[in-house]
């Protein structure tokens, strides 16, 4: 039998679908239908919808150890974040166990690898739950965290997100918390920085259409920037299976529009090449972005062009908070004197530490106990800032730091502090 054109067409379509399904896209997966970041009046913590309550009480700790799971992108695109997040969580657990654990009972941290993909994050979460974990830490990206939250909902296991900033994450249920700020803060911060501090009025935005994170951040940036009186034109690209690293099409259009700034809401993996190619195409305006830029790999792919770019971050190694100094001392002792390469080291530590703190305060040693204790967290002194979760719908009011990218110095630092923002700095 010779293949007819029908079989050809069939194989074509099926490979594309197969390819797309197997590789996914960075943040892809199901995006929740509730989108109302800006349409309804916000309540405390930024979320608007009524958060569903998990239908079950969740498991109790069984066996000799208390099992806590973490889903991390230790392979794939977000590997630099995933590894730091895991190392941070591990550090917090070791510290807790060294201090005697919970009345002598040790905490066991189990790692699940999401390979930076939402479908595998779901699988990893389910595997961890079947191993009897009573709390989950992760993920560094919103697309993956949404999948974790969906899986953990029915079992009532709390999920403490490390770096998932998408605004509507909390709508997944009352079991979802995070230790980072959300995009409805990050977007306005960058908008205000661009408008007031960098004096920009006409900004081109490039959104990665295959990342829920990028879509959400662009939306909140655009809304805030337009409210301030600026003009925005949004452009789209895709980083997923059908993606292409040649951005000359978007950049030619942007160049023709003569913007005075460029806002890139995607991840460092795409931002580096975009900025590199933008400079080559003769676009010399300031470039800005969100916390998705935070990995020193952006220096390799962005080249000289990325130097002088600004992005919004959660904390800075050069910060003089006592918690940061203490954390860096412990981190360096474990990693040959090196600082964490990305912010996820500190956030992974914070997510774990706040969970362990909840475990200590919990009335019962089980998922429900931790969940309630997490909800009662008030003014916890974390590395990346003070965290209050009580009445915040899982979204703490954190501060944000705008940093400038510099060449790497001898100590490996490449982020220069520019300005910090807290919630009250944002003009409503």
């Amino acid at each position: 039998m010779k293949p007819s054109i029908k079989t050809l067409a069939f194989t074509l379509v099926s490979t594309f679908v197969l390819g797309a399904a197997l590789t996914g896209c960075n943040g892809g997966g199901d995006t929740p239908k509730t989108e109302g970041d800006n349409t309804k009046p916000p309540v405390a913590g930024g979320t608007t919808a009524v958060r569903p309550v998990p239908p079950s009480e969740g498991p109790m700790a069984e066996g000799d150890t208390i099992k806590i799971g973490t889903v991390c992108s230790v392979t794939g695109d977000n590997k630099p974040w995933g590894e730091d997040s895991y190392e941070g969580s591990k550090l917090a657990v070791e510290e807790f166990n060294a201090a005697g654990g919970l009345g002598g009972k040790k905490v066991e941290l189990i790692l699940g690898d999401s390979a930076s993909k939402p479908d595998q994050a779901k699988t990893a979460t389910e595997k961890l739950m079947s191993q009897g974990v009573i709390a989950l830490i992760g993920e560094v990206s919103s697309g993956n965290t949404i999948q974790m939250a969906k899986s953990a909902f029915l079992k009532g296991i709390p999920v403490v997100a490390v770096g998932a900033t998408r605004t509507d994450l909390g709508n997944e249920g009352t079991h979802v918390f995070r230790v980072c700020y959300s995009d409805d803060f990050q977007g306005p911060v960058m908008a205000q920085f661009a408008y007031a501090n960098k004096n920009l009025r006409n900004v081109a935005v490039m959104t990665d259409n295959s990342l829920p994170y990028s879509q959400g951040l662009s939306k909140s940036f655009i809304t805030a920037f337009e409210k301030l009186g600026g003009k925005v034109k949004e452009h789209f690209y895709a980083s997923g299976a059908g993606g292409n690293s040649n951005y000359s099409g978007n950049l030619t259009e942007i160049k023709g529009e003569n913007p005075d700034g460029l806002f890139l809401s995607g991840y460092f993996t795409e931002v580096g090449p975009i900025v590199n190619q933008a400079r080559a195409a003769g676009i010399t305006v300031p470039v800005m972005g969100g916390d998705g830029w935070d990995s020193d790999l952006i220096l390799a792919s962005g080249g000289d062009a990325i130097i002088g770019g600004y992005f919004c971050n959660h904390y800075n190694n050069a910060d003089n908070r006592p918690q940061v100094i203490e954390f860096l001392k412990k981190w360096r002792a474990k990693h040959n004197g090196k600082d964490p390469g990305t912010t996820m080291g500190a956030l992974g530590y914070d997510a774990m530490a706040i969970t362990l703190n909840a475990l200590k305060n919990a009335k019962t040693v089980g998922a429900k106990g931790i969940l309630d204790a997490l909800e009662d967290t008030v003014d916890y002194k974390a590395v990346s800032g003070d965290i209050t979760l009580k009445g915040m719908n899982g979204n703490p009011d954190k501060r944000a730091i705008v940093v400038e990218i510099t060449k790497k110095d001898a100590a490996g630092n490449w982020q220069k502090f520019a300005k910090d923002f807290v919630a009250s700095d944002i003009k409503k």
Partner: protein
Amino acid sequence: MDFSTHFVAAFELTTLPQQLINGLLNGAIYALIALGYTMVYGVLKLINFAHGEVFMLGAYGALFVSWKLGYQPDGNAPPPSLMALVLMLLGAMLICTIVAFFIERFAYRPMRNQPRIASLITAIGLSLLLQYAGQIFLLNGTPQTIQAEKISPFSGNVVLNLRGADQSRLAEAEKLKPAWDAAVAEFKARMPLEPGGEFNLSQEGERLHTKQGDAERAYKAALNDGNAGVMKIEVPKGQVVLFTITIILMAVLTYLVMFTKQGRAMRAVSHDFNAASLMGINIDSIITFTFLLGSALAGAGAMMYCTFIPGTKIDSFLGLAPGIKAFTAAVLGGIGNIPGAVLGGLVMGVAEYLVVWAGYDSYRDAIAFLILIVVLLFRPGGLLGSAKVEKV
């Protein structure tokens, strides 16, 4: 009407020539990869789904050669050199040839006398195997980038002016420049009095900062006004090199296929497998030859893709997107047909950029498949392929 105004407003003629050239350059890479698909299909009637992964390994080959030559992301790199580029190109082609040899010998040849679906499944399996094994074994799956700006001696752009600026308006704009310069100087003089630095200005500092920004905007706006009608094509020199090498490689391929004994044998095998073997053609060696040729082209494509499109991230899934596009290009042009693959690649490349030009950049990756479906509806054999009625 709302829709029509949007539709018309989106067509900005000044960027059209540039986008067409962008599309051609983009399509050249698709064409180069598509040749591999189409040649293998021609002789073997097998769609080599692992071709994208051969492409990916070629990129790694180029990356490792560049590292070996000292162009690491950190530390001091040697000066840019043409020789390094040539070595990277040859390195990538060599790696791909070796990989293709083993793939053909140990994965496809044992399947040759089995039903064709078995070969197809083998190809898909191999593709996935290389992707996911690569994630573990190739630099632990950390994405890497070739340090193109340190290696390539081809910096800067080739510029072709089609329509100049409005000189009188530019002269008008220049009159605004002194005001901007003055505002910059004034703000600069104020800076030492600002303890908070650039981003925590006092009220007076803020006023001067705003003034500077307003003056700059007024000047730039006037300048943009004067430049509004400028129509020019600007192509990075590296991409000109890319296009030239692609054309040379295609010429070499045409020569090999049309004017050499191997090429004639290749065409014979493609025409009728069994009859060719009866005529004394060594089928195995011809198939291997075809495989290696197609893969070497993929290697060259990979090296150029990762070097001349700056910042391209190399990981084990690199081959996926170009692979799917190139495969589509091959089918579009008529699979098994060599000029068809080139035409298909160029059509797809240009179509993608026209979509971006028209303002529908979200649909950039969808257009290729839309064109494919439409073409296959009217010309089932592809643009240059012949539709045969097949007896089953």
